[in-house]
């Protein structure tokens, strides 16, 4: 994997770390260079000051050709071998105007009157530099490949130019001092890095974690079930915060849309299954009627022996069962004139009472309805009975069942809630299909019939499992003319008032 493809979670801290390291190295490098220059500068300054002091005395001494005295003078600044210090020179010597050595602190290496350019090391370069430089000016000379620094001071007074005093320093002596300094700087660097790098890592992770979560969520959006990203993930109202808000809004809409699509698909499937079942039921119903009629006729003749009579009775019971089943599949809206009333709920309660009593169930009714509603009473009763029977079967011994009925301006709502374990997910997905049953002994048509009935009334039915309760929620629209009439009358009133004003 290439670096630029790395996760931001790693890339941002890595970038930050490299920037910190680079910045620290650059700053300390610059400081170190500066320190090196300063050290060198100090060296040159101190050499020049020593040189000027020496030059004054040396001028007269050399003018008088007192070579030995000159030698003693330039030997004076040299300490014992054991106590050499960074600023101590490695050598001091004087060259005349022709760049021959007049006197040197190291006469073995630099004999009297030797040509400076013939002395090897970096002396030829130094001789060249001294030849071209202004003889009246001091100078500092350094040559590539040489570990020495030469400071030259003119030996001149009142225009009389005797030669040049050169103070040579070995960098070997001041390099350890510089390295000591560099070591200290490196320690500080390490300390700064030890503080900054973990901080950078922490901040990097903190910044990128929400982004990574967001990116993950975005990639989930196409699946239709984007992740919930809670506000605790990023609680600030900057651009990232806005991004989170937008994401949450989009995710909510997408989840809603997905749920809607699922519901549509399910109801379409149920409608298809319903048409199929009704078709088959019709086809079965016609011959069934004929067969039952034939058996009836056979029985009325009364000419059957005992064995035949048993067989015929067996056939008749079988056909009756088929008739019941097919009858259940054939749900049809039979127009009933009577409207739903509060009394209907009392009737259902009376009907269901024996089953409720058998399982010691607490049944509660919360009916918040006017005296009558423009809905077909027999259908609603059928739905309520089916849901209650289903609930009783699913409720444990001494459980609780609640029935809640209410209305809004354009809707009738019925909720049947029972305590109990929610059915497994695979059952829940096909709950309203025929012959699906979560229980032993159930034929699985009760909820299917309920569903078909609700659909015929243009209503909706949904199941929710929460807080240890299974809730079936039925919504039925009230006939429009009722609500429309109310709205029109209100509008007319407002219009009249407006005119009056």
């Amino acid at each position: 994997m290439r670096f630029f493809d790395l996760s931001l979670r790693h890339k941002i801290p890595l970038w930050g770390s490299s920037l910190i390291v680079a910045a620290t190295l650059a700053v300390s490098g610059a400081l170190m260079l500066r320190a090196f220059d300063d050290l060198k500068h100090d060296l040159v300054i101190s050499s020049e000051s020593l040189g000027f002091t020496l030059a004054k005395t040396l001028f007269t001494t050399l003018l008088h050709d007192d070579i030995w005295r000159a030698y003693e003078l330039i030997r004076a600044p040299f300490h014992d071998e054991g106590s050499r210090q960074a600023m101590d020179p490695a050598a001091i010597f004087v060259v005349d105007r022709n760049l021959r050595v007049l006197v040197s602190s190291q006469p073995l290496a630099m004999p009297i009157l030797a040509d400076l350019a013939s002395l090897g090391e970096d002396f030829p370069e130094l001789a060249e530099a001294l030849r071209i430089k202004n003889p009246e000016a001091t100078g500092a000379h350094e040559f590539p490949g040489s570990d020495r620094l030469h400071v030259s001071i003119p030996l001149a007074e009142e225009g009389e130019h005797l030669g040049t005093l050169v103070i040579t320093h070995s960098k070997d002596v001041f390099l350890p001092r510089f390295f000591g300094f560099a070591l200290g700087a490196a320690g500080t660097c390490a300390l700064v890095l030890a503080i900054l790098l973990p901080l950078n890592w922490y901040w990097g992770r903190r910044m990128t974690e929400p982004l990574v979560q967001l990116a993950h969520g975005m990639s989930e959006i196409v699946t239709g079930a984007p992740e919930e990203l809670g506000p605790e993930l990023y609680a600030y109202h900057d651009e990232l915060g806005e991004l989170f808000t937008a994401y949450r809004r989009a995710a909510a809409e997408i989840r809603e849309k997905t749920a809607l699509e699922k519901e549509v698909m399910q109801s379409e499937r149920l409608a298809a299954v319903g048409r199929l079942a009704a078709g088959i039921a019709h086809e079965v119903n016609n011959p069934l009627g004929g067969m039952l009629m034939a058996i009836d006729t056979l029985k009325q003749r009364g000419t059957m022996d005992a064995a035949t009579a048993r067989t015929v009775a067996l056939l008749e019971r079988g056909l009756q069962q088929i008739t019941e089943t097919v009858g259940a599949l054939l749900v049809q809206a039979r127009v009933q004139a009577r409207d739903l009333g509060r009394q209907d709920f009392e009737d259902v309660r009376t009907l269901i009472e024996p089953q409720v009593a058998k399982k010691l169930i607490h049944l509660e009714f919360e009916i918040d309805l006017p005296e009558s509603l423009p809905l077909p009473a027999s259908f609603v009763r059928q739905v309520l009975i089916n849901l209650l029977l289903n609930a009783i079967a699913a409720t444990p011994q001494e459980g609780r069942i609640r029935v809640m009925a209410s209305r809004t301006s354009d809707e009738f709502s019925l909720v049947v809630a029972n305590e109990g374990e929610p059915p497994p997910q695979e059952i829940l997905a096909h709950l309203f299909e025929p012959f699906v049953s979560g229980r032993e002994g159930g034929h699985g048509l009760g909820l299917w019939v309920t569903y078909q009935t609700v659909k015929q009334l243009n209503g909706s039915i949904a199941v929710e499992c929460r807080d240890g309760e299974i809730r079936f929620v039925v919504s039925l629209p009230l006939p429009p003319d009722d609500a429309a009439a109310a709205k029109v009358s209100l509008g007319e009133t407002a219009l009249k008032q407006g005119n009056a004003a």
Partner: protein
Amino acid sequence: MGSIELPNGNRQRRRLLQAGAAAIALGSAGALASTVGAQRIIRIGLTPAFVHDRHALMAEWRRYLEAKLGVTIEFHPRNSYRETMDLLHQSRLEFAWLCDYPFLYLKDLVRLLVVPVNKGRPYYRAYLLVHADNAKAQGMADLKGAAFAYSDPYSNTGYLVPRYWVRQLGENPQTFFRKTFFTFSHRKAVEAVASGMAEGASMDSYVWDTLTRIKPELTARTRIIGASPEYGFPPFAAHRSVSAEDFATMQRVLLDMSNDVAGRRILEQLNLDGFTVGELRLYAGVVDMMRAFGEY
């Protein structure tokens, strides 16, 4: 000095000296000995003819002489013979330890007092030195074009002898060397060769021998490649204006130094056996050389 207890003989001599000094002080305006109150002062010039910068030894010797003579002794060390010669010219010294060459040069101003005895004999010689690392040089001929350190322009072994050697080679001492300079002391001439400032130097054998005892690490860095014939040891001279009594007294004290413990200890440190009454012909060899240069 009166508080110092002196033996009877010395007390006698002291009185004698004081009396003589008083007479001189009254008699001549250019008196040799100066007086501070009643205390006479004898001034002795010291030169680099020996290792003259050993201050503790000088102090000990001064106290010894003061005790013997009963006078205040002033040592006047100078770094060049010229300065000591000037002091003698100005009559500002009674006695001086000189080199052969200035002694002969000032033969009309001074007379021989005593000659130090070294290794049993009143002689010394010149050594020709090169650096210990110089294994090639065998003699003066090998030092042509070298940097050469003379000790003093009035030194016998440090100036007259090496120039004489060059002259004997048929060369001109002015041009024979690449560069010459004066160190104004035999000891520094050794340092010049040891450090490499000079590739050769000529010096007093007595100073060399003394240095090998007191500073062997210095002499070890040099090598002797030649020696001159013997010359009379650098003498103690008296200004001609010094009275006969003072001359005799001083001569006696110096000659007696080897006869007592304190004197022997000083002589030991001076690397001398004692002093002897010398003769001028000890210095005939030096006179010959001076004649060769037209200086005698």
